[in-house]
C-alpha cells in the first residue's frame, strides 16, 4: 500500500493535498473531487445538517464539510453503500416536505431535484408526510413557501454572515423545525430582506423564490438542464464582502 504524505489525504485512493485548517470538503472540492452536499456552500461557514457529505474516514463516519482534513486520512466517498445512504437521505428530504417538481418554479434549478438525478433516485420510497407549513407571500419581491424548505440553514447563514441582516432562524424541534423570520410579525414584509440579498437567492430548493420571475428561463435551458450538480458543486463559491 502506498503511504500518504505529510500534507495529503487520500479520497477513494486518490492522493490530494490540503492546507491546515481545511476541511475534507474544502480539500476535495479544491482538488476537483465532488462530495455530494446540499447544506454546504463554499464561502459560508459549514453547518453539517444535511448529512449527504458523510464519508468514511478510517472506521468512522464523518461529515466532510465539518471535519478537518488530517495528514494521512484514508477516506471513502464514492462507494455503493454511501451513495445508497445518500439516496435514502434525499428521499427523506423529499417526503418530509411537499415537493411539487413538475409545477415548481424552481424545477431545473433545484439542487434537491438535481441531487436525486445525480444519485439515480427513482422514487420517493418512503410514505409522504404531507406537512402543513405556513406560506409567507407578504413581501413584495420575495415568496417564502416553507412547504419546500429542507432546513439547510443556508439562508440563515447568508443573511447573518454575508448580508449582515440576520433575517432568518430555524425554530422548533424534530419535524416541527421550521424557518422563522426575525420580525415581530414573523412576516417577511417587515424584514429588511432585499431581492438582491444572498439570503434571497441562495435557497437550493423552491422555498425562497423571487417574485415575478416565473419561468423566465424556459424549462430545458435551466441550470441542471445544462450541467450536473457535480459540476455546479465544484464551481460555486460565495465572495466575502469587505471586512470579512
Amino acid at each position: 500500500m502506498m503511504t500518504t504524505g505529510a500534507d495529503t489525504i487520500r479520497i477513494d485512493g486518490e492522493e490530494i493535498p490540503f492546507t491546515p485548517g481545511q476541511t475534507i470538503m474544502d480539500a476535495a472540492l479544491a482538488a476537483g473531487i465532488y462530495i455530494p452536499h446540499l447544506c454546504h456552500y463554499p464561502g459560508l461557514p459549514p453547518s453539517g445538517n444535511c448529512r449527504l457529505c458523510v464519508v468514511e474516514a478510517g472506521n468512522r463516519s464523518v461529515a466532510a464539510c465539518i471535519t478537518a482534513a488530517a495528514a494521512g486520512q484514508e477516506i471513502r466517498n464514492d462507494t455503493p453503500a454511501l451513495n445508497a445512504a445518500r439516496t435514502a437521505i434525499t428521499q427523506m428530504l423529499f417526503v418530509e416536505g411537499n415537493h411539487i417538481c413538475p409545477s415548481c418554479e424552481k424545477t431545473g434549478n433545484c439542487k434537491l431535484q438535481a441531487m436525486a438525478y445525480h444519485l439515480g433516485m427513482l422514487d420517493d420510497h418512503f410514505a409522504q408526510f404531507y406537512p402543513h407549513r405556513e406560506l409567507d407571500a407578504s413581501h413584495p419581491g420575495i415568496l417564502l413557501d416553507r412547504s419546500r424548505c429542507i432546513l439547510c440553514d443556508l439562508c440563515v447563514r447568508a443573511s447573518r454572515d454575508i448580508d449582515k441582516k440576520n433575517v432568518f432562524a430555524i425554530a422548533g424541534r424534530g419535524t416541527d423545525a421550521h424557518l422563522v423570520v426575525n420580525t415581530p410579525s414573523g412576516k417577511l414584509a417587515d424584514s429588511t430582506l432585499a431581492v438582491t440579498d444572498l439570503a434571497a437567492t441562495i435557497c437550493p430548493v423552491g422555498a425562497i423564490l423571487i417574485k415575478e420571475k416565473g419561468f423566465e428561463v424556459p424549462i430545458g435551458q435551466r441550470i441542471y438542464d445544462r450541467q450536473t450538480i457535480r459540476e455546479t458543486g465544484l464551481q460555486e463559491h460565495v465572495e466575502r464582502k469587505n471586512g470579512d
Partner: protein
Amino acid sequence: MCCLYRFGSNPAILAGMMNRSNPLAHEHLLHRLHAIQQQFRHIPPHAMQQAASEFNIPLSQVAAVVAFYSFFSTQPRGRFDILFSNCTSCGYLSGEQDLLRMLCQRLQVTPGKTRADGLVSIGETSCIGMCDQGASLLVNGVPVTGLNADKIAQMVQLVTDGTPIQQWPAAWFETSDTVHRRDLLLTNRLTSGSALRKALLQGSDQTLTVIQQSGLRGRGGAGFDTGKKWQFCRAAPGSARYVVCNADEGEPGTFKDRLLLREYAGTLFEGMALCAFVIGAEKGFVYLRGEYRYLLPHLQIRLDQHREQGLLGKHILGQADFDFDIDIVVGAGAYICGEESALIESLEGKPGIPRIRPPFPVTHGYLGQPTVVNNVETFIAAAHITVHGSAWFKAAGSSTSAGSKILSVSGDCGKPGIYEYPFGVTIRQVLDDCGATDVQAVQIGGPAGTLLSPAEFGRVIAFDDTATGGSLLVFGQQRDLLAIHRNFAHFFAHESCGFCTPCRVGTQLLKNTLNNITDGRGTATDIGELQQLGRIVQHQSHCGLGHTAANHVLDGLQKFPHTFSRRLQPQFTARFDLDQALASARQVTHRDDAAAHLDNE
C-alpha cells in the same frame, strides 16, 4: 472551524445574562421564559419581544428557544397544566389502565389541547425520572407519583373545584428514594469540606494525579476518562474556565441523580469545587432538568450553606486565590440538552442543538472557553476519591471499570429503586436482588442503550461490556416488546432536535414503520426497511442521539425477531388505511355512523 454556533454568539451579551451586577442578575433566559409561562400560561408575542430587548438578543432567538423546549408554549395551557410521563416505567400505561385517557374523559379534555374554559390541559411528556414511584405526572411542573384510578378520580374533583395544587394532598407530592444496595459512594457520607481541605493541602497537581490514577471514568454514559478531561481543560488556553454539572438525567429509566441531588448535594458541590481548583475555574453551573425543578429550593439552600461554610464563594477555606461559585440553570423539557454541547448551547440561552465536535467542550465550551462537563455521580465520585485515595477506589470494580456504579432499576420487578454495585456485577445478580422473576428482556442504558435477552444475563456492567448511565429497565414475560419498541421510537422522534436529516426524518420513519406493524399493516419488507433505516440513522446522524436512536430496534430484530415477525401480514397489505384516512372528514362533519365508514371486510 468557524461555525461553532447556530446563532451568532456574543460573549459579552451572554456574560451579561449571568452577571450579578446586571439588573437581570440571577436571570437566565430560560428562567425568564419560565416565569412568563407561569404568569400567562403561555409565552405571548409581546413577552417574547420584551425578553429579546431585555437580553439584547434577536427576537428570532427567543422564538427559537420557545419553540424548542417542551415546557414552553405559544398557545395558552390550562390553569392546571397536566403532563403524564409516557415512560415505560413511570408512564400512564405502566399499570393496567390508561390513566391519561381516564383523566381526559372525566374532565372532557382532548389530549394535547387546552379545555375551552382554560381550566385544564392534559398532555404527555418524556420520562420524568419517577420510574420507581409508579405512574407519574407533572401538574404545573410538580411531580405527582403513585397514580392509580383512585387518585385520578380525586384529581378530577380537585381540578373541577379549582383547588390550588398547594392544597392538594401533600402525600401526593412526596417521592421516597429507596436505596436497596449501598457501596463505595452511598455507604458513608463525606464530612463537609473534607475533600476540599485535602485538596488544598496536597495542591492541585497532586489532586489531579490522584483522580487520574483512580481510573475514574464518566458516569453519564460515554465513560470518558475524568482525569484526562480535567487535564485537557486545565491545559487548554482560555480567558476563563468553567465547571458544568450535567444534571439533565433525561435517559428514560434513570433516576439516580434525583437521589444524589437530594441527599448528596453538598458532596456534589464539593466535587465541582475540586474540579474548579484543579482546572482554575471561578464559575460553575448545575444544569438541572426542568422535570426536577421541584428540587431547586432544596439545592439553593444547600448552596447557601456551602457558602456560609466557606466552601463556595470568595477565598474558599481562606485560600486567597481560590474563588468559585455555582449557579443553577433549570432546563425546560428537552432530552437532547443532556448531550454536553447541546447543554452548553442551552446554558448560553439558545436551543439545544449539538455543536460541531471537535472542538470539544474541554477546549471550546461555555462562551467558547475551556469547560469540564461531568455527570452528577462523577463529581461525587471525585470528591470521595480525593478523601480516600485512588487505591481505595480502584480496589472496587473491574480492570477496565474502577469503582462502583449507581443503578436506577425499574420496570417489572419487586423492588425498584437505587442499587449501587461495584463494576463487574452481572445482570443476573441485579435481577435477583431486585426481585425480578420471569424476565423476558432487560434494557440497559435506557432506550439509547442495549436490549439484552436472558441468554446475556451473565454479562456484566462495565464500560467494556454493558455500559449504562444508570438506567436498567426490566421487562417481564407478559410485556409486549413491540409496544416497548414503539414507545422508544416515539421517544426519539419526539426528542430529536431536528438539526440533521437522518435523525429528524429517520426517527419519524422508524416510528411510523413500528406503528404500522403494531396496527397489523406490516409486511415482510418492513423488517428489511427497519434494518436499513436503523443503520442510516445510526451512521449518518450528527450526534449521539441519532447514533443510538435505532439501537433498540436493531437489537430487537436480532435478539427477538419473533416480536416483529408474528405481527406481520402474510399477504399484500396496503400500508395506507383508507378508512383511517377519512377520520378527519368524519370529525369535521360530526359523523361516525356506518355509512361514514368504508366497508372494512
